[in-house]
């Protein structure tokens, strides 16, 4: 391989590792695919913790005061800590690392046709900080006083005054963990955007980039633009907790509402940060399995950009009852209703893509279709909350809770299963079992609806969120209400059982599944040109690096016999090698590439040492 360029070993100690031990290969790797898998497995482990919390506190709600099998009696403080950390984990340690970091890392270089991220070592650092943040968060459950219980939104004064939260250490460590996690995503996001700008395969125009890559890049941009104010707020909160400042304390000139503004200025864009990647994943899957071109590529792209911009102007819809000026509430009602338009439009575009396609109901396709259906329910219920008039009633009830679970569950769980089942052959070189996959699909989606439809009903009936036990609220402890709570909890148990089935299928198939070919679905995007699983350096061992000739969704093209037309195939009648070019064109050869990135601190190290084998 031409990659053993001589310049590689001038960095001193850093490069001098003797042999590739397991640790180097899997924990110290700069390979984007390994980092993607690291994020995936860490995210899955965190999902199990978050899911276990949900199990414990749902049991408490259905059977208040009784001992929960494997957990014991849930105390009020533990209940609060588990609810808080369930939310925190699912958003920051599951949805973001899996949807953005795991799939972003795995897919972006493969789909763009390059050998790795632009900054592989920053990428490695990103994962390491992320892992540290997860450990710090877990540690916060075990400090004296217990884990933080002031809700994932962490409003002061509950979060800022130890006298209220009773978890002085837990609150601070929780905040530190979240801050660390943001740093990890900042580094990852910079990598994604830079790689997409600068490392695309020759010939790949902006409109040839697969939608999922676009969506992850847009999500990273939204994240980076919104997280700053929250970090500022977090620093202020940290000072309030530990150094005696009074930023959020109204008795000393501070303002607790300030935190809410800083938090939701990030918090609302954040929902689009996780939504967009899921939308992108679904776009890849429905085009492949409907064998149709994406209906309105540019429409989807511009819609996503518009949504991203609009998402910065809706945040105060979380604060309608927090004492903001009613005139301001009207403005934010208007922007909130506006933002449902692009979202609805994207769903229509996807349905338009399905229309007239020859649909194959594979497991990933089922997940993708379920995403569109379930997410629509989440979006529609958001409109009731966005209208300040109705939100005065709905705020802080289970209606809100059901609303955001109908958005987040499709995104974080259904979207992840869609992506995982779709790219599994590429990630591990083997197929998942389809029948088990379909059983798992129905065993997840049906219980999901049976958990949250009762919660909608309870919410409309006035059941408040974040209450440890309804026993002391007679009007909320009627038999019909308790029945609905039990129904939701039992459905959750059923759903969790089916997840065990998935884990079995997943780990069995990694080792024993049917071997997968390079392009098992006859799909078009560049990752299907690489081996399954892709070799180190992705395409470096091929005769030449991929060159892109057309858009990513050319299915059933009239000029062609096969129903798909991969991006990398040269137009008919043209030989694979680029024809004589008037300019002295450099071939896209790896050696070449490392030369022109010589200046670049981070890009030169890894390909040399690891692929030299």
């Amino acid at each position, binding site marked *: 391989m031409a990659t053993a360029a001589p310049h590689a070993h001038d960095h001193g100690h850093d490069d001098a590792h003797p042999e590739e031990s397991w640790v180097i290969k899997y924990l110290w790797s700069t390979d984007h695919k390994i980092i993607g898998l690291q994020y995936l497995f860490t995210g899955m482990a965190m999902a199990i913790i978050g899911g276990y919390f949900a199990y414990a506190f749902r049991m408490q709600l259905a059977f208040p005061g009784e001992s929960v099998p494997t957990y014991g009696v849930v105390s009020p403080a533990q209940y609060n800590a588990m609810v808080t950390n369930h939310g925190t984990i699912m958003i920051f340690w599951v949805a973001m690392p899996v949807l953005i970091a795991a799939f972003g890392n795995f897919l972006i270089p493969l789909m763009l046709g390059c050998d790795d991220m632009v900054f592989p070592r920053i990428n490695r650092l990103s994962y390491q900080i992320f892992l540290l943040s997860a450990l710090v968060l877990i540690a916060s459950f075990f400090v004296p006083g217990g884990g933080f219980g002031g809700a994932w939104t962490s409003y002061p004064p509950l979060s800022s005054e130890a006298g209220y939260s009773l978890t002085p250490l837990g609150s601070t460590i929780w905040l530190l963990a979240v801050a660390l996690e943001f740093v990890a995503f900042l580094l990852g996001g910079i990598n994604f955007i830079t790689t997409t700008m600068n490392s695309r395969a020759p*010939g790949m125009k902006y409109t040839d980039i697969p939608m999922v890559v676009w969506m992850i890049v847009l999500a990273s941009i939204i994240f980076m633009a919104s997280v700053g104010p929250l970090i500022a707020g977090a620093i202020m909160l940290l000072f309030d907790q530990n150094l005696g400042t009074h930023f959020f304390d109204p008795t000393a000139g501070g303002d607790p509402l300030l935190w809410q503004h800083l938090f939701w200025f990030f918090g609302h864009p954040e929902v689009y940060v996780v939504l967009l990647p899921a939308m992108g994943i679904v776009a890849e899957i429905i085009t492949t399995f409907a064998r149709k071109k994406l209906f309105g590529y540019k429409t989807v792209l511009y819609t996503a950009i518009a949504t991203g911009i609009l998402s910065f102007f809706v945040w105060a819809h979380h604060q309608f009852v927090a004492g903001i000026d009613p005139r301001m509430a009207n403005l934010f009602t208007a922007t909130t209703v506006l933002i449902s338009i692009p979202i609805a439009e994207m769903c229509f575009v996807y349905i338009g893509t399905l229309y007239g396609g020859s649909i194959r109901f594979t497991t990933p396709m089922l997940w993708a279709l379920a995403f569109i259906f379930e997410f629509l329910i989440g979006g529609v219920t958001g409109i009731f909350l966005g209208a300040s008039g109705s939100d005065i009633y709905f705020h802080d009830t289970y209606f809100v809770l059901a609303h955001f679970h109908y958005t987040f569950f499709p995104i974080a769980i259904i979207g992840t299963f869609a992506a995982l089942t779709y790219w599994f052959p590429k990630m591990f070189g083997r197929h998942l079992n389809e029948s088990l996959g379909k059983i798992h699909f129905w065993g997840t989606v049906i219980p999901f609806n049976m958990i949250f439809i009762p919660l909608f009903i309870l919410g409309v009936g006035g059941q408040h969120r974040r209450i440890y036990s309804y026993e002391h609220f007679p009007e909320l402890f009627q038999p019909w209400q308790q029945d609905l709570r039990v129904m939701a909890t039992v459905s959750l148990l059923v759903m969790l059982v089916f997840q065990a089935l998935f884990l079995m299928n997943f780990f069995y198939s990694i080792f024993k599944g049917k071997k997968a070919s390079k392009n098992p679905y006859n799909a078009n995007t560049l990752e299907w040109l690489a081996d399954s699983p892709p070799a180190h350096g992705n395409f470096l061992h091929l005769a030449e690096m991929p060159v892109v000739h*057309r858009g990513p969704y050319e299915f059933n093209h009239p000029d062609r016999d096969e129903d798909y037309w991969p991006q990398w195939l040269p137009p008919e009648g043209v030989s694979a090698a680029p024809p004589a070019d008037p300019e002295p064109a450099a071939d896209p050869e790896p050696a070449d590439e490392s030369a022109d990135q010589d*200046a670049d601190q981070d890009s030169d190290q890894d390909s040399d040492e690891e692929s030299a084998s």
Partner: protein
Amino acid sequence: MTASTAARPRPIPRGKRPPLIPSNVLAMVLFTLTELMFFAGLFSAFMVAKGMATDGWPPAGQPRLPVEETAFNTVALLASGVALYIAGRRFSVAPQSAKMPMLVAIGLASFFVAFQGVEWVQLVGEGLVLSTSTHGSFFYVMVGLHALHAIIAIFALYWAYRRLKAETLVKSQLTTVQVFWFFVVGVWPVLYFQIYL
């Protein structure tokens, strides 16, 4: 969809083009955008607190901030930014001639930070501390965070200077450091006008 959309004529793909913006510069620009939003968050929080204050700003009985001295220090910081700009211009022509303005930039930057430090010691002596009032809190947190950025930037500038001396500095690396330093320099006047005046 017509047949022509897929068979559209394409430029014959060439080898790797040099990117529009070098990757490390682009990465720093993106990072700086986040930083910009970070300071915007601080500023908006500050303006809310200032606007809500019922007993004037700064609250009565609090020490006065050293407006004139800091104006002088501001000029020093701006001059450091100009020096780094000149260094960049010179680097494109004759790299080694950029050494002098780089040193000036580093010197002025260090002077700025040291001067701030002395100012803090005086203010603490006069009784303005982090927890006296939101006035004090905002002053120390915002100015302190800016100083933290300045210190990191000084290390970056020094790193670039070392590479320049060793003749291993590349234009894009210098630009990367410049982007960050220009940001730190550019934020300061806003901070000065908001907090000191």
